[in-house]
């Protein structure tokens, strides 16, 4: 499991890229890093396309990121393609409609500050 912030884009949108299994063993250890991960970003996109396993602890991580972004007033979206492990779970807990987008470009566009 990895969760990497990519170098900040010019528009201030921060991409967080996760891969591997996001489960109860690894997700809780990421929670303390959440404020740092979204700090000073104008918008945040969490890309879960490459996550092979995703459970309620992943939901907890997404939830924490969303709250933190809410606090800093940075728009937050998740990339969870249809049929992916994360999309299914986000749909089950009712977060998909609010947060999940099918691909990265759409997610970035939706968190970009108005030009």
């Amino acid at each position: 499991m990895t969760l990497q912030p990519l170098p900040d884009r010019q528009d201030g949108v921060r991409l967080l890229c996760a891969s591997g299994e996001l489960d109860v063993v690894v997700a809780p250890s990421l929670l303390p890093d959440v404020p740092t991960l979204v700090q000073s970003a104008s918008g945040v996109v969490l890309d879960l396309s490459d996550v092979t396993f995703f459970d309620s602890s992943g939901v907890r991580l997404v939830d924490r990121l969303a709250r933190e972004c809410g606090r800093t007033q940075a728009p937050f979206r998740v990339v969870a393609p249809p049929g992916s492990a994360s999309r299914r779970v986000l749909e089950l807990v009712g977060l998909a409609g609010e947060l999940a987008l099918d691909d990265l470009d759409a997610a970035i566009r939706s968190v970009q500050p108005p030009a």
Partner: protein
Amino acid sequence: MSTDKWDDAPCGLLTLAADGIVLDANRTILQWVARRREDVLGLLHLPDLLSVGGRIYWETHLSLLLRVDGRFDEVSLELDTPYGRLPVVVTAAASESGESVEVAVFSAWERSRYERELQAARRVAERSATQTRALQHATAALSGAVGVEAVATALLDAAVGPLGAAAVTIWLAEPGEGLVASGSRGEPVDGVPVPPGRDVVALRAAVEHEGRVLVPLHGHVALQGALSLAPRDDPAADPLDLEILTAVGQQAGLALDRAQLYEQSASVAHELQQSLLDVEPPDDPRFAVATAYRPGVEMLEVGGDWFDMFLAGEGVLALSVGDVVGRGLGAASAMGQLRSAVRAVAEPELGPTRLLSRLDRFVEQVEAASMATLAYAELELATGEVRYACAGHPPPLLLPAHGEPRLLWDGRSTPLGAFSVPSQRPEGRVRLHEGDRLLLYTDGLVERRDRGIDDGLTVLRDAAAGCHDLSLDKAVERLTRTMLEGELGRDDVCVLLVSWRGTPFERYLPADLRTLSSVRRALGGWLANRGSDDETRRDVVLAASEAMANAAEHGAGGRPDEQVYVRAGVARRDDGSREVVVTVRDRGRWRAARPSIERGRGLRIIEALVDDVLVKDDEGTTIVLRRALRREMT
């Protein structure tokens, strides 16, 4: 002809005018009708001397015949005499001119009497033949009846049938109760007063009693019962024949003797067989078994069919289905001995081949078990490996979880103790997969009077294919019913259906869950091998993972020395479809623990992913998840 001869002729002679007036009559006929000549001649017509019937016949037929043909011959008439009617034969001829008619009247008294006797004799003969047939019929019905009730029924039917009674009641002697009404025809069963037993015991033959006929039914040593018949009202009906009824009563008494003895022996045999077939299958989650026993129809006697299952060794399930030759107590007890011998002889190192050889030696000692047939199979519960052998027995049927049913034709040899037993009986092998079933049965399932055994096996295979999706119990029930439908008077049938559930998935996880990822992968692989589709596999793995996480957090409290147990197996639902059952167990009580938002989410996810969730608190917490093995294709 002189007047004397005319007068003394041995027949009556008359001369009539054309209109039938008697012109002359000899003495013979005047004596017959006891009239004086002067009262007759010129005064009476011939018809006036006849009976009423004769007079009408004269007017409608005979006078016409005389006018048209000029004569009639040998017509039977009756003279009206003071002593009654006298049968006569009359011949008459008109003269050529047609003015007069000569008549000869012969007495037919003797001939009539003779004819009447002939007719009476014939009636007696016919009645006697009918009664003999009735006796034969009743005897045949009694000897064909099996059991006391059947004898009574046969007797009642014969009474109102060939024996000619209008109604009948039978009483049977019950120990300590005397005669007890047991059945009737044509009248209520308790409508006739019970005859005093003491009186009936004294009767040696059928007697008339208050307008009915009472027949004692004596057995060899005691009175078995009594029969009371009401005659028919119809005056044309033959009266009840006491002799015949006495004979029928004797036969019936002996038939009741036999029936009683028979029922005692049959009930012992039934109990014996029932107790032998009442086997509890060994308790092991790796297999399930369903059985059926259908006693033969129309036969009180038990057969020598059996089924049995037991552990032949650690993890080896032994199955035997067999059939001892013959019926009744002897066959049932031989069956019991042979079945026990199979249990005693079986051991894991032995295998089917050598087991059958040892049974060959056993039946040398137990004559009644000789020529028994047997299918014997050993199922290795860890691997699904089956070794089997059939001694003169129909082939087992393999019902794969995926694919068509297949008869197993290997491992065949002669019945036990047969004349030419091979020195080494052959053995077949087959590998069961998860959910495969194996059917063992006795020949009554496939052999019918209306089709050969080859056809029977084909029908069995087709019927088994139709039971594929049914639960084990229902499959046995349906299969048995389908195979035996419409078959009357069939043999006993034993059926045993075993299903190999295969090895469950089992793991212990440390409470820090560091092996969780590898357990998920292993569970996914296990599910794939059991035929689950991708979506089901992903959902079940996710739900199990959530359950394990909950168990680790709240049950083990994160203490690494605690463990979380997970087990997964495949089970069949009532509708026959298969489901995955995942059980996760810890030693805490997380229902009592205060629910966190995350755990609430975890449970919600689990509930959304599986068909059924059950949480049990008992020495820790157990959560059981169930989900159809395959997503339904709609």
